[in-house]
């Protein structure tokens, strides 16, 4: 019987093709947004947690600026100094601590050049820290030495950094690049980390970078730290905070454990997700109202038909069910198409992200997301259909028959 009502509902939807498709479109937009959002949101979370899992749990970073407002630290000219590194190194529970200086500098190769994030690092500590505790690997070659004109570059910078429309060349091991008029030999290429920032970066010794930018100050962008084994990183963070506060005479820095960083990233993603999902929900509500509108129009148009069906034995609930199904089917069709479009958009975004070096980001698609999308759209259709269906079912047969 339900199957028969389903057929009746489909017939009447097909009979009003243009209007049905326009109504379906409303749901398509909403559902495709929701699916894209969930798929990419989960994908982003996955990417962050993958990043963090490489980032050992006992690593910490000191940034200039307050934790609540890290960006002001980055852009507000605040920075740390070598003295701070010493303070951190001497804090109890710190295993490794070293300064990192990051500058955007033009690198030349052949007749091409490219603005690149250049990291200045002390050779020994950074090699141990990055390889042993951050999971970095060299695809080729070795790490740079202190005070030498040697550079290690990211995988993507080597492969694509100086290529344009198939012109230009890949950088190979032992080739030379020029930075501020000085020649550097490429001694190592880092295996891809799946994120743009590090895959397109270059790494040289801290002293060399300071020479190039000609700063006499002992400026440091941030301090990378590894807590000693068996020590609670949060405790170490507290101690570093206390010591730095004393030595700097101000709390103009932030000490973040990897857990904290994960939380911050998670919060940012959550905010983005909530905003986008909010938009998607608005789109869905609008779509639902569209269904309701179409159904009310349908009830009005088919008043006579309803009267006839009642005259030949349809009960109120039969009529209600037929209309409810019609609304549900409109929702479901919209949902299926929206799902397909949403998944496609997510896959395209994933593809573009991969093209641009963000290989960690993968669109999250599984059976639950699909079932959710379909079920949700069906439910929206049904909810939107309840009132019109009730109106249809309650029509008095004589009045409905008289309606022209």
């Amino acid at each position, binding site marked *: 019987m339900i199957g028969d009502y389903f057929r009746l509902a489909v017939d009447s939807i097909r009979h009003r093709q243009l209007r049905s498709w326009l109504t379906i479109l409303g749901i398509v937009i909403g559902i495709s947004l929701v699916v894209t959002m969930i798929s990419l949101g989960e994908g982003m979370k996955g990417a962050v947690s993958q990043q963090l899992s490489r980032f050992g749990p006992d690593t910490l970073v000191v940034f200039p600026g307050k934790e609540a407002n890290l960006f002001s630290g980055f852009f507000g000219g605040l920075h740390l100094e070598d003295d701070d590194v010493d303070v951190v190194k001497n804090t109890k529970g710190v295993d490794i601590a070293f300064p990192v200086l990051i500058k955007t500098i033009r690198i030349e190769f052949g007749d091409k050049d490219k603005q690149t994030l250049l990291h200045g690092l002390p050779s020994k500590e950074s090699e141990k820290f990055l390889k042993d505790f951050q999971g970095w690997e060299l695809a080729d070659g070795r790490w740079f030495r202190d005070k030498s004109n040697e550079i290690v570059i990211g995988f993507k910078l080597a492969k694509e950094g100086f290529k344009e429309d198939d012109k230009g060349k890949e950088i190979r091991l032992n080739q030379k690049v020029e930075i501020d008029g000085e020649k550097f030999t490429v001694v190592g290429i880092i295996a891809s980390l799946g994120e743009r920032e590090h895959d397109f970066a270059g790494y040289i010794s801290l002293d060399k970078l300071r020479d190039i930018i000609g700063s006499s100050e002992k400026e440091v962008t941030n301090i990378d730290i590894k807590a000693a084994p068996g020590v609670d990183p949060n405790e170490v963070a507290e101690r570093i905070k206390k010591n730095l506060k004393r030595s700097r005479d101000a709390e103009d820095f932030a000490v973040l454990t990897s857990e904290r960083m994960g939380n911050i990233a998670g919060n940012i993603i959550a905010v983005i997700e909530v905003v986008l999902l909010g938009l998607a929900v608005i789109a869905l509500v609008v779509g639902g109202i569209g269904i309701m509108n179409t159904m009310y129009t349908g009830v009005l148009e088919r008043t006579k038909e309803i009267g006839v069906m009642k005259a030949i034995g349809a009960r109120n609930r*039969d009529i209600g069910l037929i209309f409810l199904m019609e609304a549900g089917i409109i929702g479901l069709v919209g949902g299926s198409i929206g799902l397909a479009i949403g998944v496609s958009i997510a896959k395209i975004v994933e593809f573009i992200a991969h093209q641009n070096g963000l290989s960690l980001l993968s669109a999250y698609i599984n059976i639950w997301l699909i079932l959710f999308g379909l079920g949700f759209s069906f439910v929206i259709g049904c909810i939107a259909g309840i009132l019109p269906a009730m109106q249809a079912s309650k029509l008095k047969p004589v009045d409905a028959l008289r309606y022209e």
Partner: protein
Amino acid sequence: MFIDSVCGMEIKNKKFHSSHDKRNYYFCSTKCKLKFEKESVRSREKVVIEFYNVWKVYELGNARITAVKGANLEISKGEFLSIQGPSGSGKSTFLHLIGCLDLPTKGSIFLDRKDISMLSESELAQIRGRKIGFVFQQFNLINTLNALENVMLPMIFQGKVIEERRKRAVELLDVVGLKDRMYHKPKELSGGQMQRVAIARALANDPDVILADEPTGNLDSSTGHSVMNVLVNLNKKFGKTIIVVTHDPYIAKYAKRKVNILDGQIAHDHQFMKRFIW
């Protein structure tokens, strides 16, 4: 107050009477009395529809329209009855009351000896589906469905399985001579063909009573007569009770019994009606 149980007229004096089954019955004339005595046993047992002082009042804002004013009527199984009267006299309202599409404002209607006012909405729908078949002036087929599906529709609401529905619908379309038009949509059929599909649909659940509201109103006279012949056949061959509303006296001629309605009242005096209206 008494009612002539042959013609349904109200009787003030008890001049003509007869007793049957320990009950007294009163009549308007010897003609009705004789008819009763001839058919009494049969007709008493086979009453399907009884109206007792039925009133129907429509309220439109402040206006009240009384469409049926205290009607009394008995219809027996197997009758072929026409309801005639001028436009707005309450013929359709009458038919809707018989067909359980509407309930009386006052008075009672018995269908198979059950007071329909006592039934719930879904029980009424069930009765409409099983015991009554409707045929309308505008055919009222569902445009999105083809002839076969239209005929199967009433069976869906009775929960019949698809095979049974199909078999019966094909049979019925054959009866009305439209087997070769099974898959045609109403748009693709002529008026007479549509009305025959509608009749097939009315027969779907094998009802006892067929109610037709101006079934020939939208048809030319020869098509109209062929549709009427289908109804006559149903009455003769299958013993269906058939009630046809019409204001066409030629169509009314098919009926064995005529009921005239004037301004919501049944004009009981047949002799009087014969002389002055037609």
